[in-house]
């Protein structure tokens, strides 16, 4: 357990009673990498299910995919790519001990997270308005193509779970940002920024797979990038 009682003016790495600082750093990093592996497997199950259903119900899936607004998806891809870039810069700044810069860069990253969520919300709302929403009247109508249900069910599960990860990632980065505010980072200690950024890259990476899989594979309606 770290003892925070004397930490207010202490600038080095926090004291961890059962291991030295380099070990603590490499342990944290290994731990995060393992956690990322579990996250990839978590999404892996969804990707496998999606691949199987797409193969089984190709036509319905392609048609359903056309109802997604690829323009919003593309915009969100850009937002996340940019935020990954600022997260990586924040790590570099932290390694140099530039706490102010870390603060600014992480704030931008978190801001991008918000923008992503707002755009996602706009997309969900459009679907909701059209009745493409689990347990809506249209959804429960026996006439509603069952394979559409599989597509949109998976769409909401995958993007919803991803959005949840965006929120978790924002929380993690906010925790790292708070430490930058009190000038905690130095050449010796920048673990929170590093593991936070690692997690954020994963969130980005998963989206980079989700976007083409859900929006682009098949025949997107190129002339209506933002839906009807």
């Amino acid at each position, binding site marked *: *357990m770290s*003892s925070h*009682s004397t930490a207010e003016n202490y600038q080095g790495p926090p004291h961890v*009673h*059962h*291991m030295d600082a380099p*070990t603590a750093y*490499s*342990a944290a990093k*290994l*731990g995060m990498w*393992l*956690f990322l*592996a*579990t*996250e990839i*497997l*978590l*999404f*892996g*199950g*969804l990707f*496998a*299910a999606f691949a*199987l*259903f797409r193969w*089984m*119900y190709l036509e319905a899936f392609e048609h359903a995919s056309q109802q997604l607004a690829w323009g919003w998806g593309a915009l969100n891809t850009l937002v996340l790519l940019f935020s990954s870039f600022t997260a990586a810069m924040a790590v570099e700044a932290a390694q140099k001990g530039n706490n102010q810069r870390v603060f600014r860069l992480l704030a931008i990253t978190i801001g991008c997270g918000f923008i992503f969520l707002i755009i996602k919300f706009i997309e969900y709302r459009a679907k909701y308005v059209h009745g493409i929403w*689990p*347990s809506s009247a249209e*959804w*429960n109508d026996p006439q509603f193509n*069952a*394979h559409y*249900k*599989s597509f*949109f*069910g*998976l769409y*909401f*599960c995958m993007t919803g*779970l991803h959005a949840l990860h965006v929120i978790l990632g924002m929380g993690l980065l906010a925790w790292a940002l708070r430490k930058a505010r009190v000038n905690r980072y130095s050449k010796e200690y920048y673990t929170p920024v590093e593991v936070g950024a690692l997690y954020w890259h994963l969130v980005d990476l998963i989206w980079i797979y989700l976007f083409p899989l859900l929006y682009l594979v098949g025949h997107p309606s190129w002339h209506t990038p933002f839906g009807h």
Partner: protein
Amino acid sequence: MSDTQHNTQGDYLHNPSGLWSWVTTTDHKRIGLMYLFTILLFFFVAGISALIMRTELAHAGPDFLKAQQYNVLFTLHGALMIFLFIVPGIPATLGNFLIPLMIGAKDVAFPRLNLLSYYIYVIGAIIAVIAVIPPVETLSFLKSLGFTGPADTGWTFYAPYSLDTGAAIPWMVFAAFVLGFSSILTGLNFIVTIHKLRAPGMTWDRLPVFIWGSYATAVIQTLATPVVGITLLLVIMERLMGVGIFDAKLGGDPVLYEHMFWFYSHPVVYIMVLPAFGIVGEIIPVFSRKPLFGYKMVCYASLAIAIVGFFVWAHHMFVAGISDFSAIAFSVITFGVAVPTAVKVFNWVSTMYKGSISFTTPMLYAMGFVFLFMVAGTTGIFLATLAVDVFYHDTYFVVAHFHYTIQGGAVIGLMAGLHFWFPKITGKMYNELAGKIGWVLVFAGFNLTFIPQFILGMEGMPRRYFDYLPQFQPMHMLSTVGSFINGFGYTFALLNLFYAAMFSKVKAPANPWNSLSLEWKTASPPITENFAETPIVTEGTYNYGRPVEGLAH
């Protein structure tokens, strides 16, 4: 809370003292003990439910249960035993307690995460318990929260039945998801600990086999659990929102559920038994005064089982309608698990050759384990053999085989370990004679319960049957008698330990068994910081006996 405020040299049970210091502890030893008490509670509940079932099954025809109650009971027995008892069984209890001690560390890599895992486990357990209690009038608010009745699907939650039944499946499944999350965090913690916190000189080829077993287990916990996590989440989504993934009515595919479920749930049986292999590998050398025969092969075998175990899941689905080609492929790969398992058994037995063997209770459990695991392993061959499995699939043969691996393997392994490390954990000695009596009861009762079930399987008795044809009567009766002896045996053996822990006056020395492993080099019970000074390791863990020229390789 700060470590500087208390004496780090006092024993971990009393330093610091007070209930609050226990519930907020980040000490791996205390967390291990808290897990132990919690899982034994569920072992007891799930064991009682098994005895109720066996009583009902003693005679053909309905006796005192209704079909639905029976179905709820076997679900409760399976779900509690698997998710609440045996998955966390060895890793979270003895693993937590021993891993840092055995590698010469002061704690696990992330002590607070370790405590968090425990509380996540408790939350999952509470949800599971609420989801299995029958609706009561006074607790009618639970019903409005979706606790609509005890789960009746079996622990496998197969779709689409789990999507159709009125029971509180979403909650039960959510509980399993939460428990899985706890399991992932524990596994992750152990992997990092074993990689990063080994004492100077504790190289990979000197690690005790229990650490190897725990390491292989942790890898499975970390890599397999997320897949069942997402599967269970999809079941919840499907139940609550009608998305079509597994339900044929909605365009889904129930066989996909089986694939995703077994992708986790097959490797999970190795989560249960690999640490038990490790325990047996620790005990036999100590009480034979011989190095573990073929140490490297035993360690590699653990890893091989963990890795191959990921690619055999569809052997649970030979008759499920998978293609003949997949069935053949999965059958052949399954035999790949049999070989490393056999290698381990040969090595354990060879360790005893020319040893100096003392029949202590842990040694008796370990030897019993070898026999039970031989039966478990060889009956596994029947089930791996494609054409023969078609007959045995979903019969009592599978039930018996499964219990030989899990009870005969994991639970007997846990019992062996609890007796072996009892002096270290509590600083006391238990009554040896009572320990042996407990062993005899457990061993005899277990075999009497499950050998008749093998015979029932051969006769074609299907599993999960509330009622059965008269021709199956005699074996069911025998099995019921055995189950009561077995249950009594566990109660007796555990009470003996509990009594000794609370009331025994016999203090245990630091190293009562003359073991060479690191955990015995500190006091019994260990001090809060584990070791007064970080130990330095200079030789392998199993250097027992007089060196012999030219015999080593």
